[in-house]
């Protein structure tokens, strides 16, 4: 009881203590809750710091790159947007005054820039005819020029020296004195004396020129007279020579003409003689020939008469001989056709037997032997016919060994049953994806179990859209096999694609063998009916 009480009291006090504690906590928590919690935005701060330090890093790196070339290479190669930063850095460094002191920098106006550009492009225009340079005549004009130039310009003048080659001694001396004057003018500084000197020089030069002109004209007159005299003399000489030559020429011509006439007359005489003789000989030949011809005609007429007499008696005999020969020929032909007819009949029987074996539906154990025997028989019978088509068809028939090995060709029912065995394989392979792996095969096997089986022939519509999926092909092949149209069935099956076609290979082989044999035998049959 005491323990129970103490326990009760303990629990009660504990409960009260805990209540007090809770109250304290509640009051203590309120002031904390009254102050609102401050928002810290850590993500925003992070983004800001990132942007700021990245910008500082780029700016520092461009500054270093502009100074150090090796660092610039590394910077441009490995850091994105480095080139743009470098471009910006170079722009700022080149246009420092513009950016930082805009008021002190005198910006160029557009007109100044235009003028500067135009000034750089000063060109000289060349006329269409091309640039020409005219040669300045240094001989006479230069001598007169300094006269004018000294009066207008009292500055220093340099006259070029006179160069004139001539045999006349007077002219040479004058040239020398002129050159002396010119050199003295050039060396002297005074201009007034120069003028007087130049005047005197010009006077002497004009005198000289006049004298020269006189001389030249007199010389010319002399020369002309001389030339005329000489030409008259020569003309006289030529005339004399001409007369002499013509005389000689006419004499020679006459002599030659006489000779030619003589020769020509002789030749003419000889020709006449020869032709006369030839004509005589020809006439003789003609006469002889006609004589012979008449003799031959006479002989022929006589022989003919004799023959006719003889033939009349023997005519009947030869007619009889020819008739007998014709009869012989007919008889040989008849016997040949009779033989071929009987041969044809035997071949026909053999062909029919083969067809019967092919068409029969009971698989017998010795089908192969029967078939090979019949085919050998057929080969023997058709050999003497020598028909090209039949020979080629017979040569393409399957050989004995192959027939015996495989037990002949399958019957229709055998083919159908093999097809039935093939069907589930085809169906399980019909839903394969291209380049299928393990999963593809598993899924194809599983989902093909849910396929609906199709049957019957497709409905004929205007558009020739027949399905090429495996189920439609299976349905059509079943239809054809039931109707015994093996060739259409083979065509359909050979149109399959992928795995289905690979699986149907063996069946196709067998059915093709049968079709080939059937076709060859049919060919032989029709050829016989056509040619017999």
């Amino acid at each position, binding site marked *: 009881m005491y323990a129970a009480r103490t326990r009760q009291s303990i629990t009660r006090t504990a409960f009260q203590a805990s209540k007090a504690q809770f109250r304290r906590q509640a009051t203590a928590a309120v002031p904390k809750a009254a102050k609102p919690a401050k928002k810290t935005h850590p993500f925003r701060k992070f983004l800001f710091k990132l942007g700021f330090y990245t910008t500082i890093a780029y700016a520092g790196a461009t500054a270093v790159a502009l100074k150090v070339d090796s660092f610039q290479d590394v910077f441009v190669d490995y850091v994105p947007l480095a080139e743009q930063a470098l471009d910006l850095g170079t722009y700022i460094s080149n246009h420092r005054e513009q950016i930082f002191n805009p008021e002190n920098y005198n910006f160029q106006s557009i007109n100044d820039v235009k003028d500067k550009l135009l000034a750089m492009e000063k060109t000289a225009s060349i006329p269409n005819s091309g640039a020409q340079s005219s040669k300045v005549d240094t001989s006479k004009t230069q001598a007169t020029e300094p006269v004018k130039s000294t009066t207008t310009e009292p500055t220093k003048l340099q006259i070029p020296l006179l160069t004139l080659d001539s045999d006349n001694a007077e002219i040479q001396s004058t040239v020398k004195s002129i050159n002396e004057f010119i050199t003295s003018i050039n060396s002297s500084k005074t201009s007034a004396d120069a003028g007087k000197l130049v005047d005197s020089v010009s006077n002497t030069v004009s005198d000289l020129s006049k004298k020269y002109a006189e001389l030249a004209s007199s010389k010319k007159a002399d020369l002309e007279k001389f030339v005329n005299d000489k030409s008259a003399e020569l003309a006289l000489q030529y005339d004399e020579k001409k007369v002499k030559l013509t005389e000689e020429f006419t004499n020679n011509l006459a002599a030659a003409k006489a000779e030619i006439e003589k020769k020509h007359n002789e030749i003419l005489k000889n020709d006449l003689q020869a032709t006369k003789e030839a004509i005589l000989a020809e006439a003789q030949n003609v006469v002889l020939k006609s004589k012979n011809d008449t003799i031959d005609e006479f002989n022929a007429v006589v022989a003919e008469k004799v023959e006719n007499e003889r033939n009349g008696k023997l005519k009947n005999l030869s007619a009889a001989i020819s008739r007998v020969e014709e009869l012989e020929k007919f008889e040989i032909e008849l016997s040949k056709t009779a033989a071929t007819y009987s041969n044809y009949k035997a071949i026909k029987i053999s062909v029919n037997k083969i067809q019967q074996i092919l068409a029969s539906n009971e698989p017998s154990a010795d089908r192969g032997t029967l078939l090979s025997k019949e085919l050998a028989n057929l080969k023997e019978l058709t050999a003497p016919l020598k028909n090209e088509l039949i020979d080629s068809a017979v040569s393409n028939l399957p050989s004995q060994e192959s027939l015996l090995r495989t037990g002949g060709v399958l019957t229709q029912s055998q083919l159908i049953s093999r097809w039935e065995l093939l069907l589930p*394989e085809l169906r399980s392979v019909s839903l394969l994806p291209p380049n299928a*792996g393990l999963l593809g095969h598993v899924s194809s096997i599983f989902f093909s179990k849910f396929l609906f089986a199709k049957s019957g022939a497709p409905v004929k519509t205007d558009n020739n859209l027949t399905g090429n999926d495996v189920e439609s092909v299976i349905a059509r092949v079943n239809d054809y096999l039931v109707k015994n149209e093996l060739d259409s069935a083979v065509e359909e099956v050979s149109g399959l694609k992928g*795995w289905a076609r690979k*699986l149907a290979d*063996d*069946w196709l082989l067998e059915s093709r063998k049968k079709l080939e044999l059937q076709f060859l035998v049919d060919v032989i049959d029709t050829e016989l009916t056509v040619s017999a």
Partner: protein
Amino acid sequence: MSSVEKQTISQPSASLVNAKWDIVISNGIVKTGLGFGAGVLASVLLFKRRSFPVWLGVGFGLGRSYSEGDSIFREAGLRNVKA
């Protein structure tokens, strides 16, 4: 792949896929078994009989057999599959 080719020549064409399945399944069983054995060995000897190496080994075996089966069906010729 040489063993696969020999089989397809002697057998009829209708059982091409079945022959491949035979190889794939037998290869799978063998590889999984080998993986299981290797896993048990590793677990007993090295890993204080814990169970995870066994699962690892079985997983390896199944994976290998799946991959080889894939290459067999695709006739990729990359692997010479021997049990």
